[in-house]
C-alpha cells in the first residue's frame, strides 16, 4: 500500500510549507555547515599546531629530560582527546565528510562506524548543503530507531531532476515520521510503501535540491 505521509484525515490537513519557511531552513543548514568549517579551520587547527610546538619542546628537552618528555607526551595525548571530542561535535553539527564528499561517502562511513547492517546505493552527485544535511540526518534518525537485531536496511539516493530522492527500505512505517521531520521544512514530500511484515516497509522522500 502506498500512502502519502502524513495521513490526511478529516479537517487535519497539513499546511504546505511556505517559501519563507523553506528559505529559513535552507539557511539553517548552510549555517550548520559553516559552523563545522569554523571549528575545523579555527579551534582544531590551533590545537593541532599546539602539538607541534610541544614536539619542539620535547626535542629541546632531550637527551636528559626524560621526565619532561614523558610529561609532554601526556599533554599531546590529552590534546588528541580534546580534538576527538571536537570531531564528535562537528559530526553532529554537519559531518565534514558530508560537506567534502557528499551523501554516499558520508553514509557509508557512518554505517561502518555504527557497525549497522545497511547497504548504501548512492552516486557521487551533489545536492547542496540543505538537502544533503536533511537526508543524512533522516537516515541517522532511522538507524537510531532500528530495534536491536533488525534485518538489514537499504538506502538509495538518486537525483530526479531538481529533487533529491531518498529511499529507505527495511524499516517500519513509523520511520516515515522521523524522515518527515527532517525533510518537510525544506518542502520535502514523504511517501510510505507499507509492507505486510514488520520491518518490510519503504519510506521515500523527495526533497527540492540545488
Amino acid at each position, binding site marked *: 500500500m502506498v500512502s502519502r505521509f502524513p495521513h490526511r484525515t478529516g479537517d487535519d490537513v497539513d499546511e504546505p510549507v511556505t517559501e519563507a519557511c523553506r528559505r529559513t531552513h535552507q539557511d539553517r543548514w548552510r549555517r550548520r555547515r559553516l559552523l563545522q568549517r569554523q571549528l575545523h579551520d579555527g579551534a582544531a587547527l590551533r590545537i593541532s599546531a599546539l*602539538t607541534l610546538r610541544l614536539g619542539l619542546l620535547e626535542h629541546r628537552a632531550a637527551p636528559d629530560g626524560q621526565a619532561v618528555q614523558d610529561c609532554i607526551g601526556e599533554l599531546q595525548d590529552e590534546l588528541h582527546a580534546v580534538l576527538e571530542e571536537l570531531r564528535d561535535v562537528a559530526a553532529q553539527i554537519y559531518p565534514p565528510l558530508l560537506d567534502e564528499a557528499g551523501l554516499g561517502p558520508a553514509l557509508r562511513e557512518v554505517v*561502518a562506524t555504527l557497525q549497522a547492517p545497511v*547497504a548504501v546505493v548512492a552516486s557521487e552527485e551533489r545536492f547542496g548543503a540543505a538537502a544533503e544535511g536533511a537526508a543524512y540526518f533522516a537516515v541517522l534518525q532511522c538507524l537510531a530507531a532500528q530495534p536491536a537485531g533488525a534485518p538489514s536496511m537499504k538506502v538509495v539516493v538518486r537525483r530526479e531532476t531538481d529533487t533529491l530522492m531518498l529511499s529507505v527500505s527495511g524499516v517500519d512505517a513509523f520511520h516515515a515520521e522521523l524522515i518527515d521531520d527532517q525533510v518537510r521544512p525544506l518542502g520535502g514530500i514523504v511517501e510510505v510503501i507499507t509492507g505486510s511484515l514488520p520491518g518490510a516497509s519503504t519510506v521515500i522522500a523527495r526533497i527540492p535540491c540545488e
Partner: protein
Amino acid sequence: MRVALAEDGTLFREGLLMLLRAVGHQVVCSAADGDELVALLTTTPADVAILDIRMPPEPDGGLITAERLRAAHPDLGLLFLSHYAESHYLMRILEIGTESIGYRLKEKVGSVEVLTDTLNRIGNGEIVIEPVLAKRLVDRTRGDKKDVVAALSDREQEVLRLMAEGRSNNGIAGQLYITPKAVEKHIANIFVKLGLHIDTAAHHRRVLAVLTYLRSQRNQG
C-alpha cells in the same frame, strides 16, 4: 630528508616547518596550496611531500596535488595530513599509490617519534596508516567478518592491527618484541583464518588485501 610542505593553515604550516628543521630535516619548499607546491617542485628536488588533504584547490586539493606529483615524480614519497581519519580518504589515497605513501592525523605528527617513524617508513617505500584509523577498521568489522576477526587470538589481532597500519614484518616484530619469523607465522595463520590468499612477499599488496577485507561488507547492494 628533503621535505616539501603544502598546508593552507599558516599556524600549522609554520609549526611543522620549525619542528622538521629542529629534528634535522631539510625543508626545501613550503606552500599554502597545492598548485604552488607543484610549481615549486618542478625545479626543486625533494624526498617527501607533506600535503594537507583539505586545502586549495578546493575541496580536497591535497589529493589532486598528490596525483599530479606522483605522475611527475614517481619516486617522491607522499604524506597526507588531515584533521580527520576517514576510511573514505584512505581508499582514495591508496588509489593514488600503495608505495611510499602515508596518511596521518595532524596532531599526531607533533610527536617527534611519530614524525620520524612516519617519514622513515615512507622513505623506505612503506605505506603508513594512522593507527587510530587502523584500529577502528579492525575493531569495527561487520557481519560474518566480525566473528572471524573476533575468533583471532589476542596476539593475532595485534598483528592484524599493525598490518592495517602498513607495518612491515620487521616493523611488526619491533613493535611486539618478537622475532620476524614469529610474525610470519602469525600472518600465515591470520590469512588462513580470514580466507585470504595473497602473495605475502609483496608487502603493499598484503596491506591492501587486509584493508579491503576489513572495509568491505558482504551483501552490499
